[in-house]
């Protein structure tokens, strides 16, 4: 178990990337409650193996662990149906939503439009298969470099590039106006 200095280092280097860790887990698991569990588990694992962290991108290091925890959780889940929604989890969400409303945000109309747009993009990302989904999330939402994505996914950079290209082609087909989709379709056959 790491000592006090390391605990501080961990909190300073790793915990600031909690949003990213959750975002990644959320898109890999596609379930808010499972994502929270996985992130907690991943942070604990990361802390216990913090001694093995050898510099480099702390985000890529944490994301590697988050990704592996997601894979493990999904493997354990396959074939089983277990969905437990606790009351406290629900009220947390309700509380979060309430506190968000205090923000002087956009007008209600803008909010509806924006939310519809955001939901559309989110569902489109959730709909594309792995490993394309994790690649595009790491690149376009988490802004990882190709080299960092290669580290997280454990594949060469060339593979990252081709996965990203495929992922974006799938998303373009889903999200961009259909009028332009002709060329897209003829190419995706190849």
């Amino acid at each position: 178990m790491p000592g006090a200095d390391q605990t501080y280092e961990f909190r300073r280097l790793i915990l600031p990337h909690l949003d990213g860790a959750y975002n990644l887990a959320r898109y890999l698991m596609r379930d808010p409650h499972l994502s929270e569990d996985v992130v907690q588990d991943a942070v604990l694992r990361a802390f216990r193996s913090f001694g093995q962290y050898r510099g480099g991108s702390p985000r890529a290091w944490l994301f590697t662990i988050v990704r592996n925890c997601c894979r493990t959780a999904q493997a354990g889940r396959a074939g089983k149906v277990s969905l437990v929604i606790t009351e406290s989890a629900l009220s947390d969400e309700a509380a979060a939503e309430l506190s968000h409303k205090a923000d002087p945000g956009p007008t209600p109309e803008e909010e509806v439009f924006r939310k519809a747009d955001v939901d559309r993009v989110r569902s489109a990302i959730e709909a594309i298969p792995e490993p394309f989904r994790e690649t595009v999330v790491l690149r376009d939402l988490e802004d990882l470099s190709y080299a960092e994505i290669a580290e997280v996914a454990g594949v060469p950079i060339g593979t990252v590039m081709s996965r990203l290209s495929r992922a974006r082609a799938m998303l373009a087909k889903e999200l961009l106006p259909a009028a332009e989709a002709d060329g897209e379709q003829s190419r995706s056959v190849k």
Partner: protein
Amino acid sequence: MPACVDQEMLLGGLVDGELDAANTAIVEAHVARCEGCREELDRLQAVRNLIRSDGVRHAAPDALARKIAAMPELTPKAANENRVLRWLGPGAVGALAASLAMVSFVTPATTAAVDQELVSSHVRSLQPGHLTDVQTTNQHIVKPWFNGRIDFAPPVPELAAQGFPLVGGRLDSIDGKTVPAIVYKRRLHTVNLFVWPTKEGGDRAFVKEGFAVREWSSNGLRFAAVSDIPPSELAQFQALFQQSTR
């Protein structure tokens, strides 16, 4: 007109700024004379902008962030306390933490551990989206927001005229207790003021990990201000705060 198959990955690299100078020049030259690749480049930009729109990225729920920040493993405490928590097992820890918060302050952690937590919580609050749960420059919004979330009422004076504008408040975790953090700004810097009930204690001022910390007690409450502003300015903050709450 379709894009050239051999260029697709390179177009992505171009959009992402991941190509070296030589390849950038080659792809740019190709795009300049190939209509299909130009269209593809536009589509790539468009889809990339859509994915990157505000709100698509999920932020960790506040409750999760607090839970993780308060994990006993991640909290340097007296060794024996940790052992007890581990012995009780992970399931009991949450319940124990909750009951500690209710019964309160039976087992104060060592001062050094609390000092560390103050600084860590300050650092953590600076990450995007974590500074305030309630965001407002109005003290009459911050104060009621804490009602029902904590069982005491911290003073929330407005100090904008004196150079420390109020920006909001949030709940944080110090020493296993849920405590309010009142957030002020000083120019571009952040001052976190943590408040919890305690028996009287003396004033303290120190610098830890480059952050200035000042603690004082008043009316049965302990105040701890943490910031990266110079210690002299934090002393000024304390003086102003005490004046306006007297």
